């Protein structure tokens, strides 16, 4: 039987080339005089983590979560709020000291986002289908309003983080250093996704997507598997949020806006849902599209809408479907 999660020799070489390209990218960019590429690539990798985590529920598990940006935002705010408490020198809730250590703040972002995902997932997964879509969207909107209301942490205007978290005495201000930190985290995250997808857990998840009732009939507690996947995905989004808070040194309720959830979904679909590296390419496609289009016009979403419609209506299977369509002579 062909195992989609064991890489052939060819695929391994392709992945090695991809990683080598990502390592070489900032040096090439600087050499050809495009230093702005490095921060752009950093943002792209962070989106790839967020989209990859969504892919776990959406692509592998078949759960259409339309509120993934909530966990991304919660992760970002965790880093932001912990930093804020260092600045004002007063512990959070009176007993949690603030921190500006990367190795504390980012894991905290993962855990807090995971806790929110566990809670929201436990409620939302009591339903399925169209209700699940509506409920995840609605709970994300609820958290959006929560952060808008938290005036102490900037409310509507967002929260400025004076400097990036500290890590091993590295100069995190330097975009190149930060890029490599994010690159290492991204590679680690995708390795983890690969392990999850190939594990028994991943197999059960895929089986649930294909036929939930049959899996339940086999005596597997479907709800627990789905909730575990939802929580892990929330943690992944929290990681991305924690990184982006460091990257932009700013968090705002916009991170939890429903259009952000939509964008993450588009990345997963563009790349091809349920494939391991699809979200990476989807993030690449969307960020590139955004950068190119917003060079022409402020209203780049005016183009995103029709592009999305065309892809969904005519080219199913995302970019890989599009390539197949072109490669197959337009069949």
């Amino acid at each position, binding site marked *: 039987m062909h195992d989609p999660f064991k890489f052939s020799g060819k695929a391994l070489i392709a992945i090695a080339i991809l990683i080598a390209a990502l390592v070489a990218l900032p040096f090439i960019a600087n050499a050809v005089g495009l230093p702005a590429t490095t921060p752009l690539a950093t943002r792209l990798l962070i989106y790839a983590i967020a989209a990859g985590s969504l892919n776990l529920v959406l692509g592998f598990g078949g759960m259409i979560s339309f509120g993934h940006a909530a966990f991304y935002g919660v992760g970002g705010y965790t880093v932001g709020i912990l930093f804020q408490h260092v600045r004002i020198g007063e512990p959070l809730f009176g007993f949690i000291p603030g921190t500006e250590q990367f190795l504390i703040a980012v894991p905290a972002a993962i855990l807090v986002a995971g806790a929110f995902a566990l809670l929201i997932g436990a409620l939302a997964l009591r339903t399925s289908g169209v209700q699940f879509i509506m409920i995840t969207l609605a709970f994300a909107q609820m958290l959006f309003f929560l952060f808008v209301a938290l005036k102490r942490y900037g409310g509507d205007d967002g929260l400025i983080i004076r400097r990036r978290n500290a890590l091993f005495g590295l100069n995190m201000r330097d975009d190149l250093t930060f890029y490599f930190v994010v690159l290492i985290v991204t590679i680690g995250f995708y390795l983890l996704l690969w392990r999850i997808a190939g594990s028994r857990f991943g197999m059960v998840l895929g089986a649930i997507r294909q036929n939930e009732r049959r899996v339940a009939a086999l005596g597997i507690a479907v709800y627990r598997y789905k909730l575990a996947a939802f929580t892990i995905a929330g943690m992944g989004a929290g990681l991305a949020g924690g990184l982006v808070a460091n990257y932009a040194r700013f968090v705002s309720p916009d991170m939890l806006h429903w259009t952000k959830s939509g964008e993450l979904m588009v990345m997963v679909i563009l790349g091809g849902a349920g494939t391991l590296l699809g979200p990476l390419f989807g993030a690449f496609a969307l960020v590139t599209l955004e950068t190119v289009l917003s060079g022409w016009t402020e209203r780049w*979403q005016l183009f995103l809408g029709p592009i999305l419609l065309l892809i969904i209506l005519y080219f199913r299977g995302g970019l890989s479907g599009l390539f197949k369509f072109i490669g197959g002579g337009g069949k």
Partner: protein
Amino acid sequence: MSLLFVEQVLNGLQLGVMLFLLAAGLTLIFGIMGIINLAHGSLYMVGAYAGSIAASATGSFLLAVPAGLAAAAVTGLAIEYIVIRKLYDRDHLDQVLATYGLVLLFNESISLIVGRQPLFVGVPPALSGSIEILPGMTFSVYRLTIIVAGLVIAAGLYALIQRTRLGMLIRAGATNRDMVRALGVDIKLLYTLVFGLGALLAGFAGVMAGPLLSVQVGMGEQILIMTFVVVVVGGVGSIRGALFGAIVVGLVDTLLRAFLPQLVRGMLSDPSEADQLSAGLASMGVYVLMAIVLLWRPQGLFPARS
């Protein structure tokens, strides 16, 4: 205090009626066509824009209503014909993404054509002012009109669905789509009619919302997400659930916004922080309500197929 409470209950009823107009269309479209339509809020927005532009151009609110209805219906039928028709046999994911694309397209086109500045429409002179509905208590005539119009529409929908041939087909379609098709009913025409009806209701809500809110890009999604809460609370696919859910959500939201600030102000020392916090908590109220309903009855209070 008690008069203020009655007034806020009426305000909540007015919001509930608006939510019902959207939820009824959304739930019918889902119940019969199996389509989740994120662009339903865009139809509301189109209705609001067309209504307020017509009102400011002609100075007559009486003309704004047909303008908003026509714009929403034409837009609705166009997207049904061009996009939605291709989505009937697709899964929910494709439907969500395609209609998300529509939302982006509508929002950006409107801000390109009309501009980002919100439009303001005055309350029509014939309906401005307020009347005394209880001794010592007055209420806005315009809001009262919305409540009455909404309840009349709800009664009309009930009659349409329970008493007419079209309604019979709609009910049959919601129960078993394939059987209706197999019996020789032109299901495509039925789908178009239902989608058009949903668009009309959304457009009407948009026109009526014009004088109450500022008409701006993004207004559609704000109410769409609340409409989702209504549909989840009421039960997907059920008109009765939509009406009940809309009224409950409207009341809970309005009453929390009205009375929560006093409670929070008593607990926090900084009044401006208290106001913002209570406004945020009040916005969260309906979602907490949804969570409670989900714990108690995951299928909603009035599931369509019970």
